[in-house]
Structure formats: structure tokens, C-alpha cells
């Protein structure tokens, strides 16, 4: 009797386990299929996007009227952005596919710039037309390659999950058609990037450029150490290390780190001249003792001590007993927005917790700022009449094309919102309109 009960119980147990296992298996498959489908969708959409892109560029070549050209450019710009977002969805993290992405991004930049331009007064140049024809050919090639990969994927029922596994395992032997196909696409684009260099196509997407304002002689490692010690206010050589940057760095730098108890400090110093590029001190910050305003004085004094001249406060913010200040270079009353330095001050005792001057050293030069050609009143007329102008400045900003322009900066209100509006001081063009926020409902009650 007991034996039979035992057998029955075990049988039910086994059957139950089997059933449970089967269900788990089903669920796992469902999840896998879901993920696979997301990849598939992105990939097929990408192929479609590129096809459409090629098509649109082709139509543009035949267009003559300027009224049609601008919307068409906007359309192409939108498609490149779609395509880029689809590339981002694919599990290509370990596969070098960035040339293709750059190519797409460059087309996007180029068409955007053309779309926002007044084509009546400034029509497409021959060079630009030529580069557009090149684009047409290149996008055609890419389209063909991608369609080829797509065809094989569909014919052989290839799965992106396998791609992911193959990439993760770095298995050389795996004959993975998708990977190979995409590598071919990448190669194709790589071949083009050189020919595009001087066609006005490349290079506006990235704002990083050479550091313009690093003066002084190169310093040695021991000099860097000495300088860092005075900046950190440290006497001894213990707990402090210096390392030189590798060859991937934009400019050669020394990284100095310092550790003492629960205080950590870190600094990047340019080899050229020993200028501090970024500095960060980490320590627990106690309750607030000094005001944001007092902190600003400390920050300003620190900049003066480091010989950053003519810096004026641009923004101040308080986060968790830390004051963060942004300063702009001020040349004869004109605020230069790209020459920015940020300083962090602990509001418990006024210590400097951080400095970043990368933007300053990258952009700052001796500028020859022209006199504005239109008056402030004329510029005000260019602003939306519903906006009530409250404050104005003269400023040098980077416009959409990445060029520095002199502009009137107006701060105005419309309803409860505040806007910052830049009007070009030479031709009255509305360069930029920003809605200013900076505060948000405290979702957590206590952030």
C-alpha cells in the first residue's frame, strides 16, 4: 500500500515538474522570440530607410525649385535620423559599424544645414551639387549591400540572436552571413570617407576640435607633480600618483590623483603649460554653512588665483549642499559662451570641489569682435512680439553651423516661461531660441 502511494506521489511529482519545465521553456522561447523580433524589425526598417534615403537623394538631384528643395532636405534629414536610431537598436556593440553611422550622421548634418539655409540668397554651390551626386552613388552602394544581407537573412532564416552569440564568443570560424555582410557595408563606407573630406560633407557633427589656447612650455612629470601639490594643497609625496595619458588622448595630459582618508582628488593637467583641465575632489559634504552667494565669491577668487581673467558669472545652482557655478569669458562686455569654466564649491566650508576648463582651453582665443551692425532696438524688433524682453547682453555664440557669431542675447518671458533668444548682431537673423528650465517637480519628495 505504502509503496503504491509513494509511486503515485512520485509520478505526480515528475509529471508536475515536466509540466513546469515545459512551461518555463515556452516562456523562455517567447521572450527570445520577442527579442529576436525587435532586432529583426530594426534591421528591416534600416534596410528600408537606406532604400528610401537613396530614393529621396535621387529625386532631389532632379529638383530645381527652391521651394521644393528645403522640405525635401528636411525629409532626408528625418530619414537619416530614423536609420540611425535603428542601427542603435541592433546588437552591434562589438562590431565596428561606426563608419556607416558617421556616414548617415553626415548626410543628416549636410541636409539639415541646407534645409535651414535661405536658398534664394544662397543657392547650392556646384561643389555641393557634386557632393550630392556622390552621396547618391554611395547610398546606392550601401543600399545594395544591405539589401543583399537582408535577402540572405530572409532566405536562410538567419537569426540575430545567433549574431549576438557569435559576436560575444568571438568565434572566428563561425560563418555568419550577417556579420560578414555588415562588415562589407562598413568597408564600402570606409572607402568613401576620404573622398568626402573636402566636399563640405564631413566634420560638422563633432564639436570637438584642437585645443586653441594652451600656452607655455611642456612640463615634465615632476613639475606636474609639484604643480598639482600646490593646487591640492598637499605637502608630502605620499598618496599622490601621476600618470601620463595614452596615445588616444586629444592632447597629452598628466593625470594626478590623491587620496587621504575619505578625501579623493583627481586632476587632468595639460602637458603644454601645465594648465588644469579638470579637477575633482570627492569628500562627504556636511550641512550647509555658507550661502550660494558666498560660494560664488570663493569660486571667483579661485579663478583669479589660477589667472583666468575677465570671467563673469553666468549661472549658479545648488545641488545637495554643493554650489555649481558656470563662468563665461567676458571680452569688453561681450560674453563668449563657448569659453566656459565650471566650478564646484562645497557649501559647508567653502572648499573648491571641482573645476573644468576644457571648453575654455579648447575655444578661447584672442578674438577680434566686430561692432554690431544693427542696433539693439532693431534686434528687439526681430524677437517674437509676445515675448516680454527683460534683460539683454551682447554675446558670441556658436550657431547651428558651428561658426562663432556676434549676437544680441535677450532674456524674456512669455507667460510663466523664460526664454533666451539670440539675434545675430550683423544681419538680424534669429540664431537660437532656448526655453529655460532648470527646475522640476520634486518627484521623490526629497531628492
Amino acid at each position, binding site marked *: 500500500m505504502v509503496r503504491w502511494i509513494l509511486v503515485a506521489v512520485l509520478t505526480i511529482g515528475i509529471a508536475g515538474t515536466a509540466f513546469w519545465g515545459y512551461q518555463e521553456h515556452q516562456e523562455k522561447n517567447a521572450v527570445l522570440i520577442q527579442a529576436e523580433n525587435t532586432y529583426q524589425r530594426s534591421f528591416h526598417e534600416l534596410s528600408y530607410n537606406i532604400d528610401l534615403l537613396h530614393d529621396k537623394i535621387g529625386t532631389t538631384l532632379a529638383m530645381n525649385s527652391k521651394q521644393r528643395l528645403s522640405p525635401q532636405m528636411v525629409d532626408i534629414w528625418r530619414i537619416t535620423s530614423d536609420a540611425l536610431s535603428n542601427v542603435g537598436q541592433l546588437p552591434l556593440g562589438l562590431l565596428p559599424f561606426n563608419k556607416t553611422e558617421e556616414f548617415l550622421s553626415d548626410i543628416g548634418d549636410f541636409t539639415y544645414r541646407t534645409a535651414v539655409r535661405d536658398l534664394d540668397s544662397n543657392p547650392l554651390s556646384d561643389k555641393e551639387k557634386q557632393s550630392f551626386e556622390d552621396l547618391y552613388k554611395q547610398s546606392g552602394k550601401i543600399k545594395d549591400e544591405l539589401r543583399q544581407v537582408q535577402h540572405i537573412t530572409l532566405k536562410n532564416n538567419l537569426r540575430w540572436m545567433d549574431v549576438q552569440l557569435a559576436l560575444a564568443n568571438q568565434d572566428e570560424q563561425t560563418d555568419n552571413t550577417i556579420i560578414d555582410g555588415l562588415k562589407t557595408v562598413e568597408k564600402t563606407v570606409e572607402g568613401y570617407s576620404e573622398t568626402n573630406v573636402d566636399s563640405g560633407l564631413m566634420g560638422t557633427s563633432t564639436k570637438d576640435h584642437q585645443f586653441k589656447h594652451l600656452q607655455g612650455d611642456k612640463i615634465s612629470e615632476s613639475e606636474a607633480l609639484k604643480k598639482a601639490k600646490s593646487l591640492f594643497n598637499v605637502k608630502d609625496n605620499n598618496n599622490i600618483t601621476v600618470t601620463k595619458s595614452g596615445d*588616444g588622448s586629444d592632447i597629452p595630459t598628466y593625470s594626478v590623483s590623491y587620496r587621504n582618508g575619505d578625501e579623493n582628488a583627481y586632476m587632468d593637467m595639460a602637458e603644454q603649460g601645465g594648465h588644469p583641465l*579638470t579637477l575633482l575632489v570627492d569628500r562627504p559634504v556636511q550641512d550647509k554653512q555658507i550661502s*550660494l552667494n558666498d560660494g560664488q565669491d570663493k569660486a571667483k577668487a579661485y579663478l583669479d588665483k589660477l589667472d583666468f581673467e575677465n570671467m563673469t558669472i553666468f549661472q549658479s545652482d*545648488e545641488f*545637495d549642499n554643493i554650489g555649481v557655478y558656470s563662468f563665461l569669458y567676458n571680452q569688453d562686455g561681450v560674453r563668449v559662451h563657448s569659453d566656459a569654466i565650471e566650478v564646484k564649491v562645497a557649501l559647508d566650508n567653502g572648499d573648491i570641489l571641482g573645476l573644468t576648463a576644457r571648453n575654455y582651453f579648447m575655444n578661447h582665443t584672442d578674438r577680434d569682435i566686430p561692432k554690431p551692425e544693427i542696433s539693439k532696438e532693431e534686434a528687439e524688433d526681430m524677437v517674437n512680439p509676445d515675448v516680454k524682453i527683460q534683460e539683454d547682453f551682447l554675446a558670441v555664440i556658436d550657431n547651428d553651423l558651428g561658426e562663432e557669431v556676434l549676437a544680441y542675447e535677450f532674456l524674456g518671458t512669455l507667460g*510663466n516661461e523664460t526664454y533666451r533668444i539670440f539675434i545675430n548682431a550683423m544681419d538680424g537673423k534669429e540664431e537660437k531660441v532656448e526655453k529655460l528650465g*532648470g527646475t522640476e517637480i*520634486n518627484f521623490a519628495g526629497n531628492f
Partner: protein
Amino acid sequence: MTYVRVPMIYIMICFMFLALYASISPKPVNAFSSQVIQQGAVGDDVIELQARLQYVGYYNGKIDGVFGWGTYWALRNFQYEFGQEIDGIAGQTTKQKLIKASKYDEKHVKSQINQGKKFTHYGGDNNNKQTTPAKQENTGGDEGAATANTSVNVPEGYSQNDIQLMANAVYGEARGEPYVGQVAVAAVILNRVKSPTFPNNVSGVIFEPRAFTAVADGQIWLTPNDTAKQAVLDAINGWDPTGSAEYYFNPDTATSAWIWSRPQIKKIGKHIFCK
């Protein structure tokens, strides 16, 4: 007998509290602290400033304890009308003028904020008429905490949720790293957002398949600590200790040969950062 004693105890307790209250806070003549208040500040002084500006009719926004643009313009208009230097900073003279021109019912304002009520503080109107009942979801939670601001400062263009998401990623990826290493990981995420070869928003970069191991193995859903959050804020505010790196890896655990081919910039903690 008992129903006589109970009110007695109540009265005694009330007296004790009154005595305590009087001894801790003698009625301040100048309610503001001596600090100069400027844009970006948070806290009690800002609540008072907003309440007083609203009392005299210059500030129409929410009394939330964060000195934002609305408060800035209200203060400037006040300074203009009262013939003072218009700088949008509440210094001693401005505060004196404001105290003279307005009344501030601190207890009322703070209790309204603590109860999460929608309210205003205009002069001439009974305070009780200017409130609406609290929303249900705002009650509960930590009672007795100091007056929490109902708003917070966030860097331009970012929501607290973006910061939280990034803090999750940073914590999942680099919680064992030194502080700079955490700022560096956050900076890499932001450098990718700026780069043309990656998605152009924070969540796109973080959830890009196979980009971060912490996302792949679920460590991103650990609860981040304040250090990670602080590191993210620093990165958003412009600190980039990596020197514009877009990749990093841990040389001890990296499985991909490709990552070694990237030009390396530097090593922070256990991670090597590359272009």
C-alpha cells in the same frame, strides 16, 4: 473623575510645548537669515522670499523653495518698483525693503508645503481661502522631516528621471570604482550621446544592445547610492575626467579583442578609457 484629568493633561502638554517653542525660537524680527540669496539657491530663505514676493503681488508662481527664473524676474520687478539696483540678487537692503513691504506667515506656508497642498500667499486675502485640499497621493511617507522643497534644481535639459537612469547605469557598471571612475563612466555615456555614431539620447545609449554589461546582466536595476547620483550630476554639469572617451573596458574581464584596438587615453581605477 477620569474625564477631568484628561483635559488637564492636554492643557499641561500644550503649555509644555508652548514653553519649549518660546525658548527655542524667540520671535525673530528679521525672518531671513543673513545670507544673500541668488538664483539657483534652495531652502527656507527662498521659500520666504517667494512668499513675501507673492504677498506684494510680484510672484505668481509656486512657492517651492527653488530660486528659478520666475523668482528672478519677480525680484527684479520688485527692485525696479522700489527704486533699487536691479540685479536679481536678494541682498541686505532688498530684504529689508521686502520685509517692510510684506508679511510672512511662516507656520502657515510651511504647513501647506508639508501637507502638499496647492496654495498661494497673496496679501489682503485670508490665507484659508487660498488653499485647496491636499492630493491623496502626497500624504504618507516620512512625517516630521524638515520642510522638503516641492521642486528641485535640475541641469538644463535633463529630468530627474534621466539622472536616475544614468545613476542606475553608473552604479551597475562602476560601483566599486573610485568617485572619479564613476564620473568617468557617466561622462562616457554623455560623450556617446553627443557622438554621431551612437544614439542621441541617454536611454538609447544605455539600452543599446551589447553596449553595457550591467544592462545585459540586469545589474542596472540595483538601487544606486548617492555617490553614483552625484557622479552623474558632475558629468552633466560638464566634468569629463576621461578626455572625451567613448569606450571603456576592464582589462581583466574584457572578452572582445576588438576593444584592445581602440586608441587608449588613460586608466582610471580598473577601467581603461579609449577613443
